[in-house]
């Protein structure tokens, strides 16, 4: 009955027994870890061997763990002087041939925008983690939000490609980090891993896969002669392999508009072609980049479009609504950008309304509205007091009782709700 | 035995690269060069002693002195 397509399946008695011994069904070791730690583990699993970063709550653990783990496995770690230096350093390292990552939060993410644009323009693979906190500006540093979701797509100036992933659990964060690196290599573009402070700091069980168990995409090396190498050659599929500096291919990389050979151009036709190619690189491949979870969506009459920690609440709300006889379903994007237009439009054609709970003052709700093309009502449910949206808020929004902020009297009920959410 | 010898130099000017800044003309110690419109030209080849100061002062890779 509309079981989850992506997350872990039903727990049997046997699996509960194995789980209590610390192993999963396959006998792999299960670890209880924080989201930020799962992100690091995912990065290392994906072959990340360079980290440059700057401390900022609530992302700092990613840096600290990378700093401890990387030297042990022959990787490079450096704490840079600011976030701008961090994004630049990881691009430099990637051009030296290493898979590279940095992690930050809103204020640092804002600083990184120019460097992000440079990575987009020069098509250098790298992963940027943004653990979202309450903003704008210094905001409430230890409190979560989902208010950078538009910035992740539009933050840097100019028309640029964007791939942004939005995991919603600790174990998923591990896997989505691996996917972030894979997408980055496949499409030669920076990938943003976007999650909130709750996902970043909460602890859940994670099974670290054995090496080779999940796919890790290696960087494609050029095959032709160095003399003929063109780092931005659009022939044969739009994405040329990226050589590493010092490996025999001497090439030029610049943030200026450039021809296929990497050198600056002022030819207006080449400029237009380059701009279009950068966007088409993602647009032509969006079906391979899109990834959604459909939870009780097959026969849904009211849809919820939720991501990150809000999706955890939404899942619980769906189950509670179903108990009440309301056919609710959740469409959860794991890839937020490119935006899952098709899935939203298809859903909008089937349901009476789509509710978009998000921890901001309304950002993705407008994308959902756009993609729905007027086929159904789209309603936002916003919360910006740094507390997560509670399932009861989503339920009340759909049952029409109006969304109320959680009251002290309902504390007990909320605690039970939260405990159950952990098993979801 | 006394020997008198003349060293002969060949000055190559790349007209495509010369931007007419006249640094080479101004710094040549023996007044070999002159400006001809917006390009450098050799005025007095015999005065050239092969010091290559014109080459070293030229920002544009436009002038080089070879010994024959």
């Amino acid at each position, binding site marked *: 009955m509309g079981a989850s397509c992506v997350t872990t399946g039903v727990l049997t008695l046997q699996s509960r027994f194995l789980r209590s011994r610390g192993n999963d069904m396959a006998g792999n070791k299960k670890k209880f870890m924080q989201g930020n730690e799962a992100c690091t583990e995912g990065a290392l699993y994906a072959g990340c061997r360079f980290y440059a970063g700057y401390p900022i709550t609530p992302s700092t653990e990613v840096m600290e763990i990378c700093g401890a783990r990387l030297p042990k496995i022959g990787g490079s770690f450096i704490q840079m002087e600011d976030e701008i230096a961090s994004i*630049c350093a990881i691009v430099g390292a990637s051009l030296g041939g290493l898979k590279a990552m940095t992690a930050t939060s809103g204020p640092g993410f804002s600083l990184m925008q120019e460097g992000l644009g440079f990575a987009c323009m020069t098509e250098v693979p790298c992963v940027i983690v943004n653990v979202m906190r309450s903003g704008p500006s210094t905001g409430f540093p230890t409190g979560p939000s989902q208010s950078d979701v538009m910035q992740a797509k539009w933050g840097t100036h100019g028309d640029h490609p964007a791939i942004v992933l939005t995991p919603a659990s600790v174990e998923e964060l591990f896997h989505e980090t691996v996917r972030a690196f894979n997408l980055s290599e496949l499409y030669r573009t920076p990938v943003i891993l976007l999650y909130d402070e709750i996902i970043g700091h909460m602890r859940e069980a994670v099974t670290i896969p054995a090496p080779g168990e999940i796919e890790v995409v290696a960087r494609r090396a050029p095959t032709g002669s160095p003399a003929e190498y063109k780092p931005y050659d659009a022939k044969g599929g739009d994405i040329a392999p990226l050589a590493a500096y010092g490996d025999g291919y001497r090439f030029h990389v610049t943030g200026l508009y450039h021809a296929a050979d990497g050198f600056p151009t002022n030819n207006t036709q080449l400029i237009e072609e380059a701009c279009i190619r950068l966007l088409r690189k993602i647009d032509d491949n969006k079906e391979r980049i899109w990834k959604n979870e459909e939870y009780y969506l097959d026969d849904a009459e009211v849809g919820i479009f939720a991501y990150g920690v809000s999706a955890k609440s939404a899942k619980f709300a769906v189950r509670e609504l179903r108990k009440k006889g309301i056919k609710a379903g959740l469409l959860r994007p794991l890839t937020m950008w490119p935006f899952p237009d098709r899935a939203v439009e298809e859903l909008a054609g089937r349901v009476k309304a789509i509710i978009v709970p998000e921890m901001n003052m309304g950002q993705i709700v407008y994308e959902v509205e756009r993609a729905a093309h007027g086929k159904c009502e789209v309603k936002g449910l916003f919360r910006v007091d740094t507390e997560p949206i509670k399932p009861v808020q989503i339920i009340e929004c759909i049952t029409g009782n109006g969304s109320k902020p959680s009251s002290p009297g309902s504390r007990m009920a909320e605690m039970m709700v939260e405990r159950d959410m952990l098993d979801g | 035995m006394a020997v008198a010898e003349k060293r002969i130099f060949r000055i190559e000017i790349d007209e495509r690269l010369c931007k007419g800044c006249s640094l080479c003309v101004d710094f040549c110690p023996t007044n070999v060069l002159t400006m001809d419109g917006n390009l450098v030209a050799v005025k007095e080849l015999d005065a050239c002693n092969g010091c*290559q100061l014109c*080459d070293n002062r030229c920002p544009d890779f436009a002038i080089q002195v070879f010994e024959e």
Partner: protein
Amino acid sequence: MSTPAEEIKPLAKKKKKTPFNYSPYVRGGKLPHIWCPGCGHGIVLKCLLRAIHTTGLAKDDIAMVSGIGCSSRTPGYVDFNTLHTLHGRALAYATGLKLAKPRLKVIVTTGDGDALAIGGNHFIHACRRNMDMTILVYNNAVYGMTSGQASPTTPQGKISTTSRNGSIEPPFDTCTLAQAAGATFVARGTAYHFQELEKVIYEAIMHKGTSVVDIIDACPTYYGRFNKYKSPTEMMEKIEKEGTVSVKQADKLSPEELAGKLLRGVLHKSDRPEYCSEYQKLMTKVQAK
């Protein structure tokens, strides 16, 4: 009495003078470069190429990184691993690249604005870390690419588009800043003193640690015109030749004679652990645990 033919030995011929062949180092089809007539950057580039040639390093082993500005157009013209980055950020990219691939010789071509204004933070930290790289500051005391604004090295009183009545700001001394921040090789040269410059760039490259070379060269198009210099030649003579004094000469001059002059030559050289070597040691240590 004439000497028999077989006893006449030919006089030893002097070695023929040949100009330096820049072709192996200059990317084909890229010249003429974009720098203005009389701009010192082309002269500096030639000194740099001659210095690189003397090191004997393979082209594949050299990475040239730059920011934004006239100085930063340098890498596009040369046949190495080249990276033209963001305004002020060359050193951050260079740091990442060097740490990822320590065997690369990293040379950074940056400008007075690029390195000391927007890039100031990265500049002092690069000096502090003492990662093996050579930082060449093409110092023409102006933002040339954007048509002549004042920079952190514009002398007081000089005219620019943002100091039309004369700059009221005191300028940085690139070298004292670099040394204070921890750079282990600090030198200054000028485009005029091309032999010294070539030598000092060579030493900077060969030095294992952060090397900073402040290179005084001229922007005739903006700084020159705004401040009433009649020609690139005059700028070279007045600013570079008369405006500087070598370290050796300085010893013999009085403070009054030295006033307003910049020192040329190797100003500071010290030995501190180099960053990548220290990181390598750290890795060995943690892996042994």
